[in-house]
């Protein structure tokens, strides 16, 4: 009887539908068991990954790049797709000097998040280092307009500053000026930033904006030596010599060892002393300046052997030397007082000599430089 009952049960249990039902239950049970196991496994991996990551951050902050690389690599074993792990590994690799490897990670990160500012900035730096300026500019632009965390908005400004530096390095001054104007609008009145912007404007050859930036700095700090020197330089380049003289004098007072400003001030003073066309200058003084300028130009002409082809303007067959020799007897204070037109004639020759010699013999110094600058100032007037 008992054997019949057992046989009956065995029979039913071996029926396929029963086996299938049992398999379904078994599958559910196993599924739940593996889910539990999976959670334990994942939690463990996450904990190990975080541990290595924190260790890597500590090493990165301490600039122990080699150790940081190992730490981040270990962290990535447990979470291979973690964005911040990869980004920090790329930074550590850059710190270690392994830019090629870092680039591989960065490109991978960029493919995942093309709008990420940090990744674009790092890629831009990497491309710039490898001389791939087009790529670098593209990545810098991406970084400038990228998504940055609120506490890292200064990074956007840094990205633009680096872009400007790159543009200036490759001689793209026009583009650099455009970026600088955009940058100047965003830096606000912060003196340090304005000073940096002013310096970049100077390097980009935009002296007007440079002067404005330095003026902003001086409003909050009248004795800022760098700003005074920068403003003096900008005013000097703009031909605003009295203003430049004022700034440069103040700059030297604030920082007496500023030799560049000293040299620039000296030239400025010479310009102001040697310009016969200044207003409210006595006739006698004007004539003395013209005579002195004529002598200076003659000496410059004698010290600089002009090539045979260089002659006076137009089709006149006379060389500048011949012209100078021809005019010399007339350029005296007495004759100049009698014939004021000689002032124009004499100074015109002086300017032509200084321009020609600066082309043939290089940039002049001292009084010759001052005369050249005066010539530039009055060019076209």
């Amino acid at each position, binding site marked *: 009887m008992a054997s019949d009952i057992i046989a009956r049960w065995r029979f039913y249990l071996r029926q396929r539908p029963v086996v299938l039902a049992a398999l379904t239950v078994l599958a559910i049970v196993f599924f739940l068991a593996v889910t539990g196991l999976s959670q334990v496994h994942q939690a*463990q991996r996450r904990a190990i990954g975080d541990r290595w990551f924190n260790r890597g951050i500590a090493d990165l902050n301490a600039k122990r790049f080699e150790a940081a690389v190992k730490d981040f690599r270990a962290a990535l074993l447990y979470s291979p797709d973690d964005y911040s792990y990869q980004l920090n590994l790329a930074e550590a690799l850059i710190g270690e000097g392994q830019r090629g490897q870092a680039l591989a990670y960065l490109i991978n990160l960029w493919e995942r998040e093309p709008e990420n500012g940090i990744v674009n900035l790092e890629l831009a730096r990497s491309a710039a280092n490898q001389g791939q300026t087009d790529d670098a500019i593209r990545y810098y632009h991406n970084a400038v307009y990228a998504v940055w965390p609120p506490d890292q908005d200064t990074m956007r400004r840094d990205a633009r500053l680096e872009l400007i530096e790159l543009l200036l390095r490759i001689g793209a001054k026009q583009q650099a000026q455009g970026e600088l104007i955009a940058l100047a609008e965003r830096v606000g009145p912060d003196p340090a930033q304005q000073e940096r912007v002013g310096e970049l404007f100077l390097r980009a050859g935009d002296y007007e904006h440079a002067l404005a930036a330095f003026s902003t700095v001086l409003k909050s700090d009248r004795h800022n030596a760098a700003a005074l020197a920068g403003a003096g330089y900008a005013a000097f380049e703009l031909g605003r010599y009295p203003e430049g003289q004022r700034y440069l004098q103040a700059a030297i007072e604030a920082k007496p060892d500023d030799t560049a400003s000293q040299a620039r001030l000296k030239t400025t003073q010479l310009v102001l002393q040697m310009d016969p066309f200044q207003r409210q200058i006595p006739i006698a003084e004007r004539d003395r300046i013209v005579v002195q300028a004529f002598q200076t130009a003659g000496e410059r002409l004698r010290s600089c052997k002009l090539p045979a082809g260089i002659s006076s303007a137009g089709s006149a067959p006379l060389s500048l030397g011949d012209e100078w020799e021809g005019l010399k007897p007339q350029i005296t204070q007495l004759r100049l007082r009698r014939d004021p037109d000689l002032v124009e004639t004499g100074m015109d020759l002086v300017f032509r000599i200084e321009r020609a010699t600066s082309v043939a013999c290089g940039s002049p110094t001292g009084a010759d430089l001052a005369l050249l600058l005066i010539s530039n100032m009055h060019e076209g007037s």
Partner: protein
Amino acid sequence: MEPESNGEKMLVENANARSQSPWIQGYSPRTLWRSVFREDRLFLVLSVFIGVFAGLAVVCFRFAIDWARLYLLGTGVALTPARMLLAPALAGLLIAVLVIHFFPAARGSGVNQTKAALYIFNGNIPFKTAVGKFITSALAIGSGHSLGPEDPSLQIGACIASALGREMRLERDRMRLIAPVGAAAGLAAAFNAPISAVLFVIEEVIGRWTAGILGSVVLSAVSSVVVMRWFLGSESLFRIPAVELKRPAELMAYATLGVIGGLASVAFASGIAWLRPICKALPRWTQYLQPAIAGLLIGVIGMLGAPQVMGAGYEYIDQAMHGQFTWEFLAILAGLKILATMLSFVSGTPGGMFAPTLFVGAMLGAAVGGAQHALLPHLTGSAGTYALVGMGVLFAGFLRAPMTSVFMVLEVSGNYSIIVPVIVANTFAYVISRALQPTPIFDLLTQQDGLQLPSMEEQREENILRVEDAMQPVEGPVLDAEKTLEDAVKMLDHSEIEQLLVRLSPVGWGSVSKQQLLTMASQGNGATTLGALLPIAPVPYLHPDHPLETALRHVDRWPLVPVVNRADFRKLEGVVTQRDVLERYREFGEG
């Protein structure tokens, strides 16, 4: 399914009696039951269960490998020398004890064992083998032996399938095929690539495409991948780099990779073929030490500066793909990995060859790509693309699975633009490997183990005899059924032929003997057409491209079988007789 006891017999009889009652005849629960749980339907449902269970097992297997690695080798990337030396050596010792005393069937990669289940053991694999494979392979791979988890997963899947098949008491034919179904599920889950898994099992285990098995294999592979992705995510085992083919001339570079990969495959296979019998022939007590010594040597390789060769090495494949090694180091790694895998495998340590093959291929590919990039920077693309192609190259050259090798790279990369370089490189590798190493590695291992399993490569490339090979030109006249008997007899006057073919109208062929015709003519039926006169039974016809074995079904019954054109069934291309067919087979057998 036969009832086994008296009780069971009684129940069956009762059930039969109920089903025979007239009012439910045709709709009885038993009929319905049988219809729903028909063997072929059940097989498909079972395939899904196999996939689910295999997927769960593979997920657990991956966890086990991970835990073994954590506890044996540590959590960091910089392994300590002590762990590097001791972990694989001590694990090797333990594995040897387990394999020799408890799980002897867990030895090897698992692919051949699954084939043996299919061809020798009627689909039966003891479940104990799965347990043994799980434990020993996880220990081996986790401790740093240079082996992979794919082939063991394949075998674990096959074991699970076999156990379920036994439980369901499947018919013998179905039972035979159940192991490959499980194998596909295991491999698909391990490799996260269902298409490649299906192809590999068809190409290397089953050896033929049959509709009956394909559906089950696909179902099990897909369901196991779904389960695996549920737990482990759908990410590939390595980050796939951007694939690029700079210009068509770059195919030359891929051809070079194919040649180098082919040679490396031959070196790899030859090394195993040479070393394995030597290790097997050593005294039995050495088998306890062989995995430990192999582990120790692998540890030494790791200590000497190449810890990347330890374990499956997927993270390093990832790094190679992203240009994080110099090409010189990549080439060294490829060589050392071949050496380390040979040591692990020939020592009898359970574990797979897939991952090492992919590792060697990726390193070799990235090395070749890197070297060519250094020489011709404008011609070659990224090292990652070469690494991907390199994986396919070794798969084609070493594992000799040409179709899987192409689809695997496509499936892993998800980029079809890589197909041309893959085909070019794989073809070179496959051809070179075949020329220098005629026996594929799996067949070689089978032969060394004293088994005679069918060679899939031979099966694929077997020359099939066709009807056209035995076909003879038609001798004598061919009669039309519209002709009168008198005309037919006239045509026979000068013919020695005893048997004639008759073209029936509108289509079809008949056969009649000369003697029959003469007899009918002597009875005064000369003016009657042959069609009306002859009780002609239609003769089956063949086409020239039919396999010759098709002819065998007819030639013993019909002395003359017509071979007709496929476009025009009335046009006779030739005839075959039993003698012609047998003669052709004899010639073929003599080579």
